[in-house]
């Protein structure tokens, strides 16, 4: 049976790599070597560092930040600012070190996904990302409450249009279906087990009467982050909020939600906000909510298929941990990532290995590569170059690989995170796979800017010649072994090893030949011959099916 029991002992190289690839945006060799000597429990604990403080993004048009105060005429257009935000966030991911926080922030984006073209104001997206990062290692139930009042979300799902007497169900439905309890099996007309169509209507009533804060000044008292507002008309009451009693179905024990304080038939501002809190509490009181979230976490960090065995042995107990800890995210992740199951050590069956069984997301593939090879990317000291580099070397690549960042095709988010039965297999189509392979070539050739200036490039020679990376580059066996071992998720067969070494690196020439080529290089400094072969090797590894897996 699958087991959540903690795995004892040290991680070792293979399991350390597994943990770091899944829990972060990818390790460098040095990180793997450090984590390999750790115990499992220590290795997992060390992932939980608070996210560092950060500066808001800067606009090349002004050279200054545009968050506070909000953008003016002097700033770049909103559409550009939104692109800049993508770069800014991905830069954070790229340089987040070994920490699970940035990956959890991204998890929140895949869960509470909004589409940037539906969000008119760039600052709203900034504050949403800030919210994801603020709660990265925090409380899931709290962030669920906050997202209901998030300006970007209020725009994305028409929440700002939802008013008493003119309801708009868009957010109410997706809140139940996507963000919290999830849709269950449909039992009959309008009955989705976990909620009914009537609950969608009642939830929409709870969410009525909130709007965008276009000044971006009103803040949430807990996080201090800017949020939406209660529509008060000319007064101080929640004028557009439905103040009637909302009666939920038996799926929610016929709970009634109504304003705790009313004046002249209108809810007070606090009472309207409090209804959101009541609703989230009601939904999180249902056992299914914790399970639904745990399934999503499992698919994100572990494996996309959830068998009945996994449901019983992993999901249900994990959901118990989640509830026992009042929906704090850290205990759940610690338990999952420390478990025998996560490391394939819970049984003697070897057909169910999880190591290597996840198809990397485009983000994991691209950032994982940049981080492993420590490809140098400019800082925001040169703003133009900074945005152009990330745009060309990352954002555009992600799009080619099927991840249009912050712009998925549909409201449910990126297909790979929700579309049964294939989930992450959706990252692989004929086009996407070819583009992933093409990326290897692009990175080795270098990405160039509009003026043909080099933006960034994977310099294989530099990497291989550094003894911190490769112990003895003159030895082609060691060289190939070390690269494949650190870059590929599972051991490869001898035959496969020989393909990489003999066919690719040595071009079917002798080992002696390579040794002399390398000595030649060391003597003369002329790297022409060895560089070509090394680039071929790295490209072949990156263009292998194995490299697509984590």
């Amino acid at each position, binding site marked *: 049976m699958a087991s959540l029991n903690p795995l004892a002992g040290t991680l070792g190289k293979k399991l350390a790599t597994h943990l770091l690839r899944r829990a972060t945006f990818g390790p460098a060799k040095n990180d793997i070597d450090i984590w390999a000597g750790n115990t499992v429990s220590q290795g997992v604990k060390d992932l939980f560092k608070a996210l560092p403080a950060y500066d808001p993004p800067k606009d090349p048009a002004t050279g200054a930040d545009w968050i506070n105060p909000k953008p003016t005429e002097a700033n770049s257009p909103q559409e550009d600012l939104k692109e800049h935000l993508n770069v800014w966030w991905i830069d954070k991911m790229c340089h987040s070190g070994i920490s699970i926080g940035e990956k959890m922030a991204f998890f929140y984006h895949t869960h509470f996904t909004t589409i940037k073209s539906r969000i008119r104001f760039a600052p709203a997206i900034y504050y949403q990302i800030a919210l994801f990062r603020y709660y990265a290692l925090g409380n899931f139930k709290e962030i669920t409450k906050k997202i209901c009042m998030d300006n970007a979300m209020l725009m994305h799902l028409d929440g700002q249009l939802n008013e008493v007497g003119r*309801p708009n169900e868009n957010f109410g439905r997706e809140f139940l279906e996507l963000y919290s309890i999830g849709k269950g099996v449909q039992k009959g007309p309008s009955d989705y087990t976990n909620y009914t169509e009537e609950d969608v209507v009642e939830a929409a009533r709870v969410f009525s009467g909130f709007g965008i804060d276009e000044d971006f000044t009103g803040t949430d008292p807990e996080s201090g982050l800017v949020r939406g507002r209660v529509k008060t008309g000319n007064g101080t009451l929640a004028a557009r909020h439905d103040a009637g009693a909302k009666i939920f179905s038996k799926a929610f024990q016929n709970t009634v939600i109504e304003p705790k304080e009313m004046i002249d038939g209108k809810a007070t501002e606090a009472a309207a906000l409090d209804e959101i809190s009541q609703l989230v509490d009601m939904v999180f009181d249902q056992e299914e909510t914790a399970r639904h979230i745990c399934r999503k976490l499992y698919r994100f960090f572990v494996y996309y298929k959830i068998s009945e065995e996994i449901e019983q042995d992993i999901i249900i107990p994990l959901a118990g941990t989640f509830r026992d800890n009042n929906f704090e995210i850290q205990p759940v992740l610690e338990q999952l990532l420390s478990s025998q199951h996560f490391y394939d050590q819970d049984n003697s069956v070897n057909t169910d290995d999880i190591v290597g069984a996840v198809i990397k997301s485009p983000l994991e593939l691209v950032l994982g590569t940049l981080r492993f090879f420590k490809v140098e990317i400019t800082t925001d000291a040169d703003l133009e170059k900074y945005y152009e580099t990330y745009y060309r070397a990352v954002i555009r690549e992600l799009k080619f690989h099927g991840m249009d960042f912050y712009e998925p095709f549909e409201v449910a988010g990126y297909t790979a995170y929700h579309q049964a039965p294939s989930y992450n297999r959706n990252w692989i189509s*004929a086009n996407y*796979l*070819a583009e992933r392979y093409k990326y290897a070539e692009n990175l080795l050739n270098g990405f160039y800017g509009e003026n043909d200036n080099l933006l960034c490039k994977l310099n294989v020679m530099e990497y291989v010649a550094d003894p911190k990376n490769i112990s003895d580059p003159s030895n082609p066996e060691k060289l190939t072994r070390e690269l494949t071992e650190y870059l590929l998720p599972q051991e490869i067969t001898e035959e496969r090893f020989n393909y990489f070494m003999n066919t690719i690196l040595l071009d079917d020439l002798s080992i002696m030949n390579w040794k002399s080529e390398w000595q030649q290089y060391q003597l003369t400094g002329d790297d022409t011959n060895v560089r070509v072969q090394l680039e071929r090797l790295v490209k072949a590894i990156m263009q*292998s099916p194995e490299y697509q897996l984590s």
Partner: protein
Amino acid sequence: MNRRSFLKKIPIAASAPIILNGLPLNALARGSALYKMAAESDNDRIIVLIQLHGGNDGLNMLVPVDQYSNYYNLRPNIAIPDHGARRFINLDSTLPVKDQMGLHPDMKGVKELYDQGKVAVVQGVGYENMNGSHFRSRDIWFMGGDYNDDYGSGWMGRYLDHLYPGYPDAFPSESMPDPLGLEIGTAVSLAFHRANGIPTAVSVDNPDQFYNLINSVGGLPPESVANTHYGDELQWIMDIEKKSNQYAGRLKEVYEQGRNSPGVTYPEKYPFNAPGGAVNNPLSAQLKMIARLLNGGVKTKIFLARIGGFDTHADQVESYDPTMGKHAALLYHISSAVKAFQDDLKGLGLEHRVLTMTFSEFGRRPASNGSWGTDHGTSAPMLIFGKEVNAGVVGTNPDLNNLERNNLKSQFDYRQVFGSVLQDWMGASDPDMEKTMLEDFVTPQTKLPLISDGLITAVEKQDFIEKRFRLENCYPNPANSIAVFSYFINRHSFVSLNILDTNGKIIKEVVKEQQSVGSHEVMVDVSQFKPGAYIYRIKAGEWEVAKRFVVVR
């Protein structure tokens, strides 16, 4: 699941006779000429599916004219008007009153195709207990299952998998050198998934680029793959890589050999104002590519194209004009692109091989919301295009007086539509239908008469067309110097067009001659007419119709 349980679950329309153009009709009998013909030959027919992503508002696409005041009261802020320059287009005056419907004013292309006998409308398509979730409901349409089924495969995938045993290893083959299915874009939907292994379709955006891309990358794959979770994923990637290598060259070749009809222009933009994202026609390029591939000789059986933006919770229409806005633009895109596609196919001599159909995960709620939009609903009409369709309307207008939980009741199960098309159009055999798990939807009680039947067809279609002539509104109206009268006739006949005063006295004989099939236009100098109202009346054979226009000074 137990396959037999389907039988119990088809309450929709199974007991009532199926209505075509207001008349009860027996579905194509199993022994019919067409059925035999289709089943015997290795036919070259194909299906093009157009997915309307987000849930299309069927009631603003096809207005139930017989219940107009009800319709209006349910959605006063977004209702398509029954008067004015942009009133709905009456689809077919020959239908019984209770079936009368109005096309959205931006769907002129569909109306033209309808008059040519190339459109079948299937009213009220859905399934029992429709799911309000986009994602779940779309999966159901793709799966070909019930509301509570959960298949890992799609109906197209199962059909193609059975039609081409041995996929993927045995393909491409000499008789089937092309992908079995082709999805336009970069990803492949659940619809094409088989029970196991890679899907039966490849996704392509542009065959040239696709070829160049595929050919520039890749190395040798590993020779053996372990029987593990890790191995499963490796195999999946390797299989897709192999298929794309195999198909890329062929698709490029076919594409380069193919061409579109020289005289046909695919629409690029919505001609009126619409929100930025809705202006460009996203369907044109997709259908144009399909026509070109077909002309080049591609043998792919099912194509899937997609147009998004139908989730119109807000701003479905412009607040100042319910006939304008996002949804109007989308309907224009469908109508104009399909019209161009159909004309293109005709020009290429391919019209008899292609059936095109639209579908969406659900319709929208009859009552509009306060944001000039509509929330998720249930059943909606499907449009089927092709030279060989049984032109006309299957089913009747939804009953707005008889809603179920504020939503429309279904008249037909979506699998009746897909199943009938697979059997009568593609010639799917009984075992094909069983493997596709649609066999219960093509019984004599459930099958829909969507495809016209062999020899009888020609006559039936002729009848259909002869019943459908058209006199356009004169323009400008009011007129002051020149008035232009135009009309369309479907039969070579003696035409008289006269202008009468309001007492019925003929003021001017405009046309009095034999005329050929097609559009006619005639300009009349009315500068000498006294200001006031006039009637213009056309007669062609037994067809006669009159309209009013006004002369002003």
